[in-house]
């Protein structure tokens, strides 16, 4: 959140930093380097399409999906999905949020993004009889563990 005005003082101070790079690793490769799931670009396109939903898109006074929630969903998918992670479904919610969900064999995992700092998670493992709910704010450590369980199935 660069709240400093320093970037606007460039004429007073000459920077030493250089952005020139001889690395042959393209930006896109850095982004998807080790583990991206094959479905990622399709799901990202679905999420971005939510942004064109108009007010009342569900006929029940739903509000448009907020851009920051779509962005958060994309960040989470990039961070927590591996090549072996099954494809999730994504759905808009009527309060401007986004839900990412997996219903795989015995595991149900739902991640509802109300805002970038209000994320509800519901996890259920029917085989082991485990059911958990989490209200996450900024600490998202648990997500990596939950999403990895999907890959192990």
């Amino acid at each position: 959140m660069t709240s400093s005005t320093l970037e606007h003082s460039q004429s007073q101070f000459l920077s030493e930093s250089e952005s020139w790079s001889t690395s042959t690793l393209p930006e896109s490769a850095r982004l998807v380097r080790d583990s991206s799931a094959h479905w990622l670009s399709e799901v990202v396109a679905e999420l971005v399409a939510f942004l064109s939903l108009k007010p009342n898109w569900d006929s029940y006074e739903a509000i448009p999906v907020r851009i920051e929630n779509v962005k958060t969903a994309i960040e989470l998918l990039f961070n927590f999905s591996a090549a072996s992670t099954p494809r999730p479904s994504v759905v808009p919610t009527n309060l401007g949020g986004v839900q990412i969900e997996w219903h795989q064999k015995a595991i149900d995992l739902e991640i509802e993004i109300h805002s970038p700092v209000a994320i509800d998670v519901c996890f259920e493992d029917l085989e082991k009889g485990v059911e958990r709910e989490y209200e996450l704010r900024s600490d998202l450590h648990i997500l990596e563990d939950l999403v990895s369980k999907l890959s192990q199935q």
Partner: protein
Amino acid sequence: MGQGLPNFDKPPLFEVALAVQFQPLENFKSAHLGLLWERYRDEFPLIEEHCLLEPQFERFGIRRTSTVPFKLEMMDRPPTPRCWFVKENGSQLIQVQRDRFIHNWRKRGEEANYPRYEAIRDLFEKELVEFASFVAEESLGPLEFNQCEITYVNEIEPNSVWCEHSQLNRILTVFSDDSGEQELPKLENANLRVRFLLEGDDGKPIGRLHVNVEPRHRADSGKPIYFMTLTARGAPKTSDVNGLMHFLDYGRQVVVKSFASLTSKEMHGTWEGPHD
């Protein structure tokens, strides 16, 4: 409030910013910036427009956020700009955009005195309360604070302790030019970015301290300087003004103590401190 914190008579402060980020106000339009300016105009008679700041969130348990270089923008309407309302002498300003409210103090002129945190904090709180009242009166939506930050920018000038960028080890306690038995080429300069975790009483992360050290030259004299920027950022415990101010007070303590800890005793002497 400042008790027990290291205090310098001549701190190298160049800028201080207190900032809060909130849920974007969907109904906030360019015209509202003009209406809002009326409330501050007597004290901040100058106005500037700038590009929007991207939202920033401190999250934990995410490994790759900083490597996702995508930008998502709605193009169905022109973006409402970020406005600066600036004091006549340029030393203080308010920055406003649809999800951000910031107060900056900037050093203007060699003789300018730092008014101290308490004075800037009081101004920020007063101006923010005014902003909240404007948002309520114009029915622009709930003001839900989700991140806040405090930033200190220090301009470290060459003096009897150091005179060229290669001598960063004389400025910082965490930087060494000792390469042991191996030989390194001569250091020219260094650009450092360090992140520290801020933890709550329960040991869980609540924010981060970002420290950037950047070499520059003065455009007029060519003199080398280092800019050292310390930013404490995180989510307030509660999304109201009290929660926000509580985090800023805590962040200020972290920034001030860390600055003293990261810089050398020799440099402290030139800034005439620290006194408790």
